[in-house]
Every structure is written in C-alpha cells, then in structure tokens.
C-alpha cells in the first residue's frame, strides 16, 4: 500500500503537468517574497520620515518655549504633552544622564550622549501599566540646552517583533493562496492534459501491437493536442495505405511470378525426360526465354520501386520533350506499320520540361508498346497518335489509340502493379508498364491520366494515356 502510494507519487512527479506546477509555485513564491519585502521596506521608510518630521516640529516648539519662558515653561509643556494618550516620548535629563522628568522609566545607555537623531532604533522601558513587553523600540532626537540639560523627544516604534509578524503572516497567506492556485491549475489543466496524453499512449501501444486501424482520440476543442492527434492519425492513415499497397504488391508478385516459375520448371522437366537433342534444345531455349522474361519483370519492379522511392537520384535537366516525342514516334513507326497501324504525330515544337530523358523515354516507350499491343483490337483502321501540346500551364503528352480502351471503373486499377485487363494473360507483358509510367510522372511532379479517345464510340472508344508535366517557369 505504502509502496503503491510512493509509486504513484513518483509517477506523478514524472508527469510534465506536476513538474510545471511545482516550477510555477517556486517562481511565484520568489516573486511574492520580493514584493512583500519591497513594500514593507518602502512603507517603513515612509513611516520613519513622517515620524522624524513630527518629532522635529515638536523639538522646534519646545526650543522656542524654552527661549520664551525658560525652564519652567519647558517643563510645563512637556508634562502636559507627556500625559496625552499615545504621546511621544519626552525626557529631560541632567548632564550626567539622569532622567529628571518625562514619561520614560529607563533608556538604553548612551542614547543621550549624542545630539541630534539617534542613529538606530534604541530600546527603552516605559512606565509600568502600559501592558505588553517590558522594552519597546523608539527613535528620538536629543537636544542639549545651554545649561547642560538634555531634552529627548522620540517616538515609540512598538513591539520589535510585531512588524516581522505581519510580514511573515502576509507571506504565509500569499504562499497558501499560490499553493491552492497551483493545485487548481494542476487539476484543471495538468491532470486533464496528462490523462489525454495517457490515452494517446494507450492508443499508440495498440497500434504498435499491430492494429494499424486504431486511431488516436481527437477531442472537439481543436487545441494543440487535437492537432497533434490529427496529424498522427493522418500519418497512420498513410502508413496503413502504404502497408496495404505493399501487401497487395507482394501478393501480386508471389502470384504473378509463380506462374512463369512453374512453366520454367515444367519445361526443364520436359527437357530432362526427352532424349532427343532437338527437343531438349527447344526446351532449353524456352527456359532461357522464360528466365529472360522473369529477369525483365524483376528489373521493371526494381526500377519502379527505385523511381517511387525517389532513390533514383535522377539527374534532372531541361529536356526537349518535343524531340523525345518525335524520336519515340520515329522509333515505333516501323513496328506500328508492321502491326498494320498508322502512327501519326501532332507535336508542338520546342516544349522543354525539367526531367530525366531516360526515364521519360522509357515511359513513352511503355505507352507506345501498350498502344501497339491493344490498338489491334480496334475495328476499322487501327491508328495511334502521339500528341504533344502546352495546355493551361501544363505540357501534355498523349498517346492515343482507337482500340478497345479501358472501362472507366478499371482505369485506376490498371495502373497498379501486375494488374492487367487481359485476365487470360494471352498478350505478352509484365503488367508493370503503366506502373512505371505513373512512378516516373510522380517523380516529375506530374501525373498519368487515362481517358477514352472517343467517348461516343461505345464499341472502340480507344485509350488516351496522357503524361501531364508541369510546365517549367519561364
């Protein structure tokens, strides 16, 4: 029980709110102490000044009375004044220091020696019956008369401990108020914050345990904690999506590489079974072709992930997109013709983008490969158009075909790795072409857009794949 309390208090002191409250209390206390001492010092000085002034006036009065009426008048005035309630201190003393008259029983020795104001408060003993402690503090002015008598007029400063008591009480009250304030602050703000942080770490623990669908609690106030939770949640969302994507990709890889590997294995088994060298040779060639295709797939995968991760420190420079487009069209024109298609170009000259020529080239080649592969399904005369134009601050490079196109709802899908519309996989290809194009476009701060070449032609709308580049600032 005791150790638990101890643990709890240790835990409490580890919390930021408690540490901050303690620090505040300390600072407040220092400030308060300074204030109290400053104020008391100032009022003491003011009081002392007023006392001195009053005493000074009386001294002047009494000296004048002495000059006018001699010792008798002086004695009378002093007697009268001494009897008034709450009066000042009045002493007439012999040159030897013996008190002749006045309202003081005894004085701290040596007070009467010096003329003028006493340097420091001194102790004196009033006549009995006034109550309180025996000795009081006082300050006084001593005047020597021409006949050697000394007159002392002073003022009682009261019980020496009284003033300190007041100061101490004020300090205690101030500290109590501050302690209470700190407690309120801690309960109101600190404990609240502490609890919210605890809730956040509890949620984080669950997430770390593997439940990526968990989210941090977000309050309604929109304060710093809520904003923090919000951004952490957004981050979690992104991680979850990436994770999901990764899982999907690895599933696809496993699935799509299993098939060619199985084919490879079967071919090798066939070659082993057959003794005829011709058959064996054919099988081995098939194995090599199959392996080459696998290697190509792996290379494409590696390339995509390197481009996506931005780890290709691709050297970006001003690239003549018009020239690349024309070159690519020229490179593919014979292949298109061979496949019974026409390849037309509508290329605006002199369009420059900031980019990597190799990557852009490979992306265009991929799109042209696709166009040649799929435009053949079109009825009528298969046609591919390479179109490059500057439109509204973007440079758009489109490869249009009039083939079967891609249905609207599948356009997002086909960009993913290994996704192919052709479920039977009868056409050659890795299913990675568009993924690479998209990755390249993202690296260039652009996008890949897929649309229909002719929306109204339901049977063969065609596909227009557009690489959208941000136009460089002129």
């Amino acid at each position, binding site marked *: 029980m005791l150790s638990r309390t101890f643990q709890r208090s240790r835990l409490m002191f580890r919390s930021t709110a408690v540490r901050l409250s303690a620090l505040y209390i300390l600072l407040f206390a220092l400030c308060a102490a300074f204030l109290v001492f400053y104020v008391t010092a100032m009022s003491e000085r003011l009081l002392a000044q007023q006392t001195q002034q009053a005493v000074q006036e009386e001294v002047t009065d009494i000296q004048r009375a002495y000059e006018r009426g001699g010792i008798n008048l002086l004695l009378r005035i002093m007697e009268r004044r001494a009897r008034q309630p709450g009066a000042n201190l009045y002493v007439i003393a012999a040159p030897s220091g013996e008190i002749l008259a006045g309202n003081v029983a005894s004085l701290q020795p040596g007070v009467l020696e010096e003329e003028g104001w006493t340097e420091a408060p001194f102790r004196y003993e009033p006549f009995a019956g006034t109550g309180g402690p025996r000795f009081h503090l006082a300050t006084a002015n001593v005047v020597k008369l021409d006949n050697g008598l000394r007159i002392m007029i002073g003022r009682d400063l009261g019980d020496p401990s009284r003033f300190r008591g007041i100061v101490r009480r004020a300090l205690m009250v101030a500290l109590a108020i501050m302690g209470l304030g700190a407690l309120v602050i801690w309960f109101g703000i600190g404990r609240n914050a502490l609890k919210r942080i605890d809730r956040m770490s509890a949620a984080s623990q669950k997430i770390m345990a593997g439940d990526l669908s968990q989210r941090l609690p977000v309050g309604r106030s929109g304060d710093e904690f809520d904003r923090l939770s919000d951004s952490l949640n957004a981050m979690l969302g992104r991680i979850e999506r990436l994770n999901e994507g990764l899982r999907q990709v690895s599933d696809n890889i496993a699935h799509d590489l299993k098939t060619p590997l199985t084919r490879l294995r079967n071919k090798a088994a066939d070659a082993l079974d057959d003794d005829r060298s011709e058959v064996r040779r054919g099988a081995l060639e098939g194995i090599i072709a199959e392996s080459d295709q696998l290697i190509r797939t*792996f290379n494409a995968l590696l390339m995509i992930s390197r481009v996506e991760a931005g780890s290709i*420190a691709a050297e970006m420079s001003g690239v003549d997109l018009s020239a690349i487009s024309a*070159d690519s069209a020229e*490179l593919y024109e014979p292949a298109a013709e061979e496949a019974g298609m026409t390849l037309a170009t509508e290329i605006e000259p002199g369009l420059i983008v900031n980019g990597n020529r*190799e990557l852009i080239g*490979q992306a265009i*080649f991929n799109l042209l490969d696709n166009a040649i592969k799929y435009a053949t399904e079109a009825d009528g005369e298969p046609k591919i158009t390479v179109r490059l134009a500057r439109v509204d601050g973007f440079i758009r490079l489109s490869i249009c075909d009039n083939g079967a196109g891609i249905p609207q709802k599948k356009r997002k899908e086909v960009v993913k790795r290994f996704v192919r519309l052709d479920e039977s996989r009868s056409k050659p290809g890795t299913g990675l072409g568009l993924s690479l194009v998209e990755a390249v476009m993202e690296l260039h701060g652009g996008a890949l857009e897929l649309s229909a070449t002719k929306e109204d032609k339901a049977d063969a709308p065609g596909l227009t794949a557009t690489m959208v580049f941000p136009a460089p600032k002129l």
Partner: protein
Amino acid sequence: MQITPPHSASPPDSTDAKTVADAMVPHMKILVIEDDLEAAAYMTKAFREAGIVVDHASDGDSGLFMGTENTYDVMVIDRMLPRRDGLSVISELRKRSINTPVLILSALGQVDDRVTGLRAGGDDYLPKPYAFSELLARVEVLGRRKGTPEQDMVYRVGDLELDRLSHEVRRAGKEILLQPREFRLLEYLMKNAGQVVTRTMLLENVWDYHFDPQTNVIDVHVSRLRAKIEKDFDKPLLKTIRGAGYMVKDEG
C-alpha cells in the same frame, strides 16, 4: 586471388557461341575482376568458349595489380568489390595512364549509376542481370575499338560502301537512299563490321537510350534497313545472330 590459367580454347558446342566465335579476333585477352566466384567461373568458361583468353581477379586490389602488371585488350570490372571498389580501380588505372577499355558490371540500377560509372572512366556499362551474349558482344566491340579508326571516312563491307561525310550509301556502285536514322543504324553496324551488335547496343548508340528494348521495335528497323541494302542483291550482308543480335559481315 584467383588467377585462371591462360587460353585453353576448345571448340565450343553451342552454335550461338560458335557463330560469335567465328567473328572473333584471335587471342583477345581480357581481365575479369569479379568477386562472385560462381559468376566469374561461368563468365570465364563462356569467354573461353568464345576464344577469349581470360584472367580473373576476385578483389579490387589484386585486380588493380594485375591490370597494372599485364596488358589486356579489355577489362570487365564488377562495381562492388571487396578491398577496393570497382570505380576506384578504374580511376586508379586511368591515373596510371592505362587506357584499356573497361566494361563495368553492376547490380545497381541503370539510370543514375550508369552515368557515375562512365564518369569514373568506364567505357561501357552493363547492369546485372545480363545475358552473356550481351556481355560478349560488348567486350568484342570494346576490344576491337582500337582496330577501327574513327577517322575512316568511308566504311566498306563487301560491295557495300558508306560515306560518312556525304551520307551516301552505295552497293555495287548503285546508290541506296536511306532515312537519317537508317543511315546511323547502318553506320554503327558497319563500324563494328564482323562483330555482333545487340539490340540494346543499337538502342544506345543509334537512339541514345540506355535500357533493354523489350519489344521488337529495333528488329523492325533492322529488317527495313536490310530490305533496302539487300533488295536486288544476292549476297546477304546483314545477318541476324540468334539469341544475340545482328552483324554486318561479308562472307567473302
């Protein structure tokens, strides 16, 4: 360090390699610096079958030593090596004024690493994994490089003539009209006459793109060119080397 014994060429069994070997300069001698012993053994065997003398070093330091002490026609250097990496071997060789053509092999991707490799003093770059036919074709072209003077203004193969200055192509005195790209294609093939040129090498040298063309785009260009230079003539000059690439050669 592993030094393989000198040339012990036995006639290879594979017809692909045989076709290639026929085109060989006899006794080309190369140095392979590769730390993957299995890959090195495969490479050494295949090079020998193609009639090439191979020395092998398995780390950067011994590779540099052998490259400095002996004379080779070509060096094939893996980029990542123990003791001293491939690029450092190349720049050290160049510092010692050894200008033997170097082909860099690398498991690193193509786009950026190619540039750094060539900047370090390499002459050609081949990303792993590669087909051996590709490597062989490139090594042959590199080894032959010093034999083909760049300043030849007219290339001749059999009765085919290509004038680099006037951009005229004639066969048996008859002018053949070529598109600019077809001209460059033929120019590159004739510059490396008698040697296998792969599709990737054509894409690199004629179109200036450095990747593996995955479709038949290059083949279509070559067959168009072939139609132009072989139409009306009996003797074929532009041959397809199965599994490797193309070669321009006068069979005599």
